[in-house]
């Protein structure tokens, strides 16, 4: 996807395209690492010095200096960045300033919980989105119209409100799950709903728009005129072409699941990447924050890389200049989706 390439140039061979995309991905991850470091280093202050200077501790200045030196926080920012970066390239994520534990241990301990949550949320989101999309084409008119409002509504409700509501109703009142058993299947299910609802809205929007688009195609009209039922039309003809673009939407919402996990995990009391970020942010634990940002960037980049590399193979219509990948853009930019679909 050469940025500088003019779309009128001839398509490049697949291999060049693939190599270029991989190199770009690596550059983006490294830049994300540096970016986080620089952003957080803007502010003076770190968990170590803050604790040490708490008057209650009554440490002497000499003691404070020596401890700060142990953490390497007395060196200039660029030296710290260089050391962090060279460690990072070798796969060493450093040591948490807050807990004194290796960052890789901290992340390794909680990664599983977040992956389970994110995957469940994705399943919930897809189920909801396909349910809504199916309803818009097959349910009785008033219901179908109401269903079309759902994505917009889902996108307007803060996800912490969804979480609080679910806990209040299903944990406190109905007793369907226990909040203190936060990693149990029931609690995970409800946390996945809270996290999945905003994502389902985006998937549903694209899906509905694409279904509408397909339904206006000649073949659909032809099939209907030959007496094919709406439900059959949906399953046989509309669903498949409309679903392919959903793959790209999913790739793009992966980051959102991680971001949303910040709030959802906090509310549901889960021990995952999100709550780790929460604890690290309030203590400005730079090595942990850097690692999480990079992890998020890696996940996002890899998922999108895979989609980008696989998509041209799946869909011959996609030309490698990237100009014709309408569904993909639709996913990124719901604004344009409907423009495209209604045109």
């Amino acid at each position: 996807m050469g940025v500088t390439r003019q779309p009128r140039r001839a398509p490049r061979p697949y291999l060049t395209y693939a190599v270029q995309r991989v190199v770009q991905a690596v550059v983006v991850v490294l830049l994300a690492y540096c970016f986080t470091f620089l952003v957080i280093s803007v502010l003076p202050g770190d968990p170590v010095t803050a604790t040490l200077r708490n008057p209650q501790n009554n440490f002497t200045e000499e003691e404070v200096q020596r401890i700060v030196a142990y953490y390497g926080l007395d060196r200039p920012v660029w030296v710290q960045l260089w050391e962090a970066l060279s460690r990072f390239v070798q796969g060493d994520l450093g040591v948490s300033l807050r807990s004194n534990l290796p960052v890789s241990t901290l992340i390794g301990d909680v990664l599983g919980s977040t992956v389970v949550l994110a995957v469940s949320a994705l399943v919930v989101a897809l189920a909801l989105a396909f349910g809504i999309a199916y309803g818009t084409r097959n349910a009785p008119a008033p219901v179908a119209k109401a269903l079309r409002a759902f994505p917009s509504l889902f996108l307007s409700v803060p996800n912490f409100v969804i979480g609080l509501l679910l806990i209040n109703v299903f944990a406190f009142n109905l007793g369907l799950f226990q909040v203190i058993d936060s990693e149990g299947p029931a609690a995970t299910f409800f946390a996945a709903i809270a996290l999945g609802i905003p994502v389902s809205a985006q998937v549903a929007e694209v899906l509905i728009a694409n279904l509408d688009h397909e339904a206006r195609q000649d073949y659909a009209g032809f099939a209907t005129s030959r007496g094919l039922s709406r439900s059959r039309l949906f399953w046989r003809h509309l669903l498949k072409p409309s679903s392919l673009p959903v793959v790209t939407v999913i790739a793009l919402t992966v980051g959102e699941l991680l971001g949303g996990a910040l709030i959802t995990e906090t509310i549901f009391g889960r021990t995952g990447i999100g709550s780790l970020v929460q604890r690290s942010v309030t203590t400005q634990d730079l090595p942990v924050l850097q690692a999480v940002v990079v992890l998020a960037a890696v996940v996002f980049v890899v998922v999108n890389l895979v989609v980008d590399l696989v998509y041209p193979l799946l869909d011959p219509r996609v030309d490698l200049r990237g100009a014709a990948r309408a569904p993909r853009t639709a996913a990124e930019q719901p604004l344009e989706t409907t423009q495209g679909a209604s045109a």
Partner: protein
Amino acid sequence: MSHTRPRRLWRSVAALTAALALSAGCASSGQGGAAQGNGQKQEGGDVTFLIDSLGDTWIPNNSAISSFQGHIWGHVTDKLVYVDENGEVSPWVAESWEQNDDATQFTLHLRDGVTFSDGSPVDADAVVANLDIWAKGRPDDGINPIGLFPKTYQSATAVDPLTVQVSFNAPTLGFIPTLGYHGSILISPETLALPAEEQADLSNDIGSGPFTVASWKEGDSVVLEKRDDYDWGPEALDHDGPATLDTLTYKLVAEPSVRTAAVQSGQAQVAYNPSPQELGPFKEQGFTVAAPRYLGFVNGFALNTQVAPFNDVKVRQAVQHGIDRDQILSTVYTDDWLPAESFIQSNVPGATDHSADFAFDPDKAAVLLDEAGWKAGADGKRSKDGTPLSLTLYPNPYLATSKSVDELVAQQLGDLGFTVDIQAYDVVTYGEKVAIGNPSVPAYEVTRSFIDAGTVAGVLTDANNGEDWFNLGQSDPELTQLGSEVASSVSTDERAPVLDELQGYVLQQGYFVPLTQIVQRLYLQSPKLKGVTYNGVAYANFYTAYLEG
């Protein structure tokens, strides 16, 4: 794109509203009353303790004074002496002790047969290693000294396997009580020799306490199990042998309402730091609310006497008289809280009642402000020579109720004509921006525990590297004199009258504005849980606790 009928949108909103209202209605009809025990003491049993944080690092020296981790350390480790909630010091791992006449040398006699959970003995060498690390830490390896450990510490030596001699370069009356402070936990010398990164793994931290660490997960939970061969609990607790409970699980649950709801439904036995205002219904249902006070300073403001408007004693006194402590107690707290009587908690040995010096009297406060030249304008706000009478409060992030208290104080002082701003920070930013003596911090909100009233001498002035809470330096000769008399006392009997005079002086000068006595550790407990004890720093101890059937 087909158009969504707007009515549908709003109907969805209406449906959501209905759902919300429904759940709101249900919320009040929660679970029924608490299940009372049958009065039968159970052997064994498991207790789950829901806590709002598990602190940061587990390096013993860096975490022992944490309000959260102190709970775990209190069960995994022992201390040399025990200090109860009235400041009474009694033997524990140290069976007895002596001091010389000027309180510069102490001899500790250790109990025989005490072992760390790895089997090694808690002998004189181990105690010396601990004293050294408490006093000096290993700064170059990232291990802090223990805050508040006497800076006068010189050395400790093992006289024989059960006798330790400790020397100070100045009278240090507070040494023995400090050994019962939450920082002074006995850790195996092998652990103390480990690098910081390994000490940070709680599983590597070996103590001699009635419980050992079975498992732990950062930011999630710590599971402790009882040590069967434990038989050296503090005499004062009147409990021999191992603990009754089998396991103790500390589980992090950030939301106060979730913690209390879990205790209510019987999924957990203890909720730490519930919001005080939610406690009423729980008490009616028979749940136990424990609000032990710690030994220390009361919650209040240390005023910066060098910046306007608090460079005027009348304004300082006006603030003292302008605060309605009963309203704070009834709005933010419950009747488990007590109003302040001095600037130290009333359970500290040597604390005396000076509440008359700062009683709520808005008329008197108004007169004082008038006299000081701060006149009320048309909007009720006072000013002098065009300068508004303003004040910024910085709620202390270590006290959960601090924001609510400050909001109320702002309201009360606002009625007096002050313009009050509130600026709240997280712990890190607070440490960075809100320091005692900083000109932009006119009133520093104090929440601090200590074991010995002698600590007071170290905060009043800048003498002997003191903290200089009121930014006076040593410009107030009387305060400096009283402070040094307290610091150099060699017996508590000699110290008591000076301490009384000091409290009166500080309060009459308006240097400190007491609010309420502080309950930094609040517990909501299942009625089945009995026999919990609280030490001088208000940590709940489950060594003596048991469950009823």
